């Protein structure tokens, strides 16, 4: 009896904390199921991803890219951009060779080719 009570309390806590996540997962899965994967990404990752994909399409796959961060706090966006640009060679800030992409908050653009 005590064991069942203990397990019931633990499950109630787990459902309280994770139930919303699971409901959201089921909803997202059902609504995304028929969408192309890129559309799912745009929906899940939002505006930054859409901007990054636009930049990815602008840059040839064999180009070297310098990602210039306007502010140090733009580093996370820069890292994601670098991830999206793979397999293009990327480096940050210096030396400013190849294609240069400026990351200024959510505003990202190719400033030199």
């Amino acid at each position, binding site marked *: 009896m005590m064991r069942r009570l203990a397990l019931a309390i633990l499950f109630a806590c787990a459902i309280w904390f994770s139930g919303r996540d*699971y409901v959201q997962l089921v909803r997202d899965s059902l609504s995304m199921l028929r969408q192309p994967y890129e559309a799912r990404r745009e929906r899940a*990752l939002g505006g930054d991803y859409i901007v990054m994909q636009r930049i990815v399409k602008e840059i040839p796959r064999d180009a070297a890219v310098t990602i210039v961060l306007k502010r140090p706090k733009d580093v996370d966006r820069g890292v994601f951009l670098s991830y999206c640009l793979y397999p293009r060679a990327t480096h940050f800030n210096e030396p400013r060779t190849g294609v240069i992409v400026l990351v200024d908050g959510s505003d990202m653009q190719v400033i030199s080719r």
Partner: protein
Amino acid sequence: MTGLLITLLWFPLLGAAFSRLAGRTSWFLAGAGVNALALFLAGVLHIPLKPVIAVLGLAAIAVLGTTTKSWSGARVPRASLSSLPLWITAFVLLIGAVITPLADYDGRAFWMLKAKAIAREQRIDGPFFQLQSTHSPRNQYPLLVPLDAATVMLFARDDDDRQARALFAMFAIALAFEVRRRFAEWFSPSTAVWLATLLLWLPQIENASGGARSGSADVPLAAFVGCAFFELIEARAPLRLGLWLACLVLTKNEGLPFALVFFIAGAFVFRRRILIAAVPFAAVIAALFTWRARIPPTDEQDFLGQLPGLPQHIGRTGEVLAEFLPRFGFLWIAVAIAIAILVGKRAWRPLVFGLVAILPMLTLYTLAYVVTDWAIAELVRVTATRLLAHFVAPALFLIAAATHSRYTEISQ
């Protein structure tokens, strides 16, 4: 869908072969471990990865074709209506992970990028790891998870991260099923099913940021911690313990101290037979340090190097505890109660096993927060849930031992 099929076929195939040789264990986790360990050792020796994958597959088929099951007498829980909650949760988690895109920071920035590079370059010390191509944050992070993800990408002939989505979810699901198998043997089938299901409902396991739906290596580390911990309790198969220790070392930086703790505990459990576990463990440590000597570091945090500064930072302990303790959540309240019950029952053996698996590393994590040069509140906010996930199997074991009158069976 291709990645899902490969994940569900390739790793269990290798794990089934390993189980034939070393005794029954989680097919998926053993397969993921064997695959990555073989590829890492081959990579350090500059052997191309594709032929190694082919040899692994042929060897697994040969083992399965020429040997017989060695665990026919062992109790293996059968699928039944009572285990429906576990199967449904596992199904929702797996299919949900496959359908929804990867969205977490660490998964993309650190782990999946390495997997893409390995799949493309077929090497673990090629231009990417020499910093001659793409920016590689945390360049010297261990490679078990990226190697497994790269294997899926190689089979799929596609280095898109969606191919590896099922792989990450399967680490959590495989751990849950291993918890069910072990707890059914040691406690009762119903306790086993419910605690295994609970594991997949824990916020630190199910979430999309560091959990089973992320591309992070914390859930794989938790899975290997669980497997190593169960081997210590069972005290039967030092070779399997050696596999899990090697996997811990290759999964995350925290895995090495974790493995050392389990190795020392294993010396008391296995006595001289611990030497069998020492062989793969030592080989992987040597390979890891050889590989790291060949590639430049980037922005890795050197927490162990900061530990000598502990006396100067000891005054921050109160701030660390104030930030860290509220992150523990309901599972750890249950663990504290379970510990009190086990003390009351004088059930020393399960208590000692559980505490050995939890306390040393929990202390190390706390000290890492104390000596860090990051803002403590920010670092704890970002990492605490993921670090606590590492202990989920020992935590559930303590709860099971405390709530079950049959705990005495494993204290013999």
